[in-house]
């Protein structure tokens, strides 16, 4: 593999139902700063059916170039045709970096692609930098420059590892949604748009979609919320989440929850904060009846202000809370809701 041949930062511009996912803009934003360090450009790879019209939106968020792979076989996400699309783009354009969102789609797609083209893949990155590998010069080891240094939490959020892929290209990473910042939208910005179709012939690896069942409740994305009122098993029952919903309404926030709550079937998966749920960083995070398993902390500890209410004074949530209240949520939460309502009404 001639590493020098590989140039440019590519990002997978995920779309669902022909609507670009927020992660695509976040990846362009981060890709832009990496490309700046490398003196190169950001290319968004848009894959789907009848998606060419979405290219301008990618340009508005900073993409220099958009490669469109448009084919009827790509209408709904399926692993094989999407993997074929990305692997073909990589073989043809030879990017040095390829970023994919660590979404349900990206975490399925990226491993398949990396295995097909034989390169490394680092999962769920929360930080990306350009730097040297090894980080410090070592005797008898060539120190390579301009490497992608991929940082991610591991071992249930107990540790942070920085990983490089010095001998293979592209350097591939999936990136946690909600961590990288998108650039301000520039209306009317244009990118070079190029269409590319490697051909899609169904084979044994193409699965058949029998049915698509969408969640009936149209919920707000907890990753966009400025205030989250999050509940754990300590809330006690699905009915008791009403207390949290009332507080959320009073304070202009959204309800989220811990994994225990999802496992118990009290709330749907898309409201789950944590290692196997979503990473959130709201202005205010209320952790109510959440003990604070390390996997949960990994998903919310970057919140600006963390207010925890828990009756167990030794709960680990208090180790990250800015304001911890040891007490009974059943008494405190309804009173707090009333106070906030009164305060808001008085203004």
């Amino acid at each position: 593999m001639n590493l020098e041949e590989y140039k440019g930062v590519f990002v997978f511009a995920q779309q669902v139902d022909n609507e670009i996912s927020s992660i695509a803009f976040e990846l362009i934003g981060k890709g832009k700063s990496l490309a700046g360090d490398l003196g190169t450009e950001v290319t968004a790879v848009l894959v789907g059916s009848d998606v060419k019209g979405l290219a301008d939106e990618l340009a508005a968020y900073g993409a220099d170039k958009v490669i469109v792979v448009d084919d009827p076989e790509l209408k709904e996400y399926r692993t094989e045709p999407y993997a074929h699309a990305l692997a073909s783009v990589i073989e043809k354009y030879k990017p040095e970096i390829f970023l994919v969102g660590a979404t349900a789609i990206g975490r399925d797609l990226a491993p398949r692609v990396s295995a097909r083209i034989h390169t490394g893949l680092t999962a769920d990155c929360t930080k990306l930098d350009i730097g040297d590998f090894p980080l410090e010069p070592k005797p008898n080891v060539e120190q390579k420059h301009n490497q992608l240094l991929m940082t991610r939490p591991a071992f249930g959020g107990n540790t942070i590892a920085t990983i490089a892929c010095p001998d293979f290209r592209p350097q591939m990473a999936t990136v946690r949604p909600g961590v990288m910042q998108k650039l301000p939208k520039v209306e009317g910005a244009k990118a070079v748009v190029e269409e590319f179709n490697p051909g899609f012939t169904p084979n044994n690896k193409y699965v058949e979609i029998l049915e698509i069942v969408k969640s009936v409740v149209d919920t707000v994305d907890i990753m966009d919320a400025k205030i989250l009122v999050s509940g754990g098993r300590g809330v006690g029952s699905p009915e008791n989440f009403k207390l949290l919903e009332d507080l959320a309404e009073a304070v202009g926030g959204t309800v989220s929850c811990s994994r225990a709550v999802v496992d118990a079937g009290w709330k749907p998966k898309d409201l789950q904060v944590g290692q196997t749920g979503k990473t959130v960083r709201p202005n205010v995070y209320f952790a109510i009846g959440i003990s604070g398993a390390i996997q949960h902390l990994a998903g919310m500890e970057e919140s600006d202000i963390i207010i925890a209410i828990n009756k167990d004074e030794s709960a680990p949530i208090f180790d990250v809370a800015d304001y911890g209240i040891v007490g009974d949520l059943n008494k405190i939460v309804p009173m707090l809701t009333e106070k906030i309502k009164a305060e808001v009404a008085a203004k």
Partner: protein
Amino acid sequence: MKIVVCTKQVPDTKSAVKFNPDGTLDRSAMLAIMNPDDKAGLEAALRLKDKYGAEVTVISMGLPTAEDILREALAMGADNAILVTDRVLGGADTWATSQTLAGAIRNLEYDLIITGRQAIDGDTAQVGPQISEHLGIPVISYAQKIEIEGDSVIVERQFDDRYHVLKAQMPCLVTALSELNEPRYMTPGGIFDAVKKEITTWGRADLVDVDDSNLGLKGSPTQIAKASNKVRKGAGEKVTLDASESVDYIMDKLKEKHVI
């Protein structure tokens, strides 16, 4: 029907995590359990066995101590257990791990391979899809329900706000979510039988169609530059007050920070 289940022995990440000087995990110093998603995958296989009849083979790559989780799998009802262990396989990233497991599975007949979605130590969710790629078979990840229909597998595949019902021709690889089921306990009879059963041990020489350059630390495209314990922001204030004082306390803070 023949089902292969991949399982991993993982450190219980709720306990303390320890490292070797080179940044790799010191697994010998930590409590070890069967990875939860893999256990759900095993349970799914055993339920298919109960319903349709199947031979379930459990395979694990790891240290010799991984025999413990293979015994557990046998006691739960698996028919065969294979341990893939060899010094040259150590330090593998997901590429080298998936190459190893694919090389081992090539010795076996299979209709269905089930892996857990992800292991709680690495949390990558990469090995399952990568094995399927090396074997040239379809993959369905994030399974929340698995059924068999003729020579096909029907799977509910979870997404964020929806799920897909997918049909794939077997042989196929499915990755299982812990939410899939509640794994059964080992039975006293199962434990008794498991102790008597033989665990097959394979090393490097038993792997089929895998080049040395794709194995172990040397065959891993990704390399660790640095690993460290997570530095958390310190705890803030913690108060124990009665309910109405607590509310006043929170109100003060919310006003102070201009939230309300």
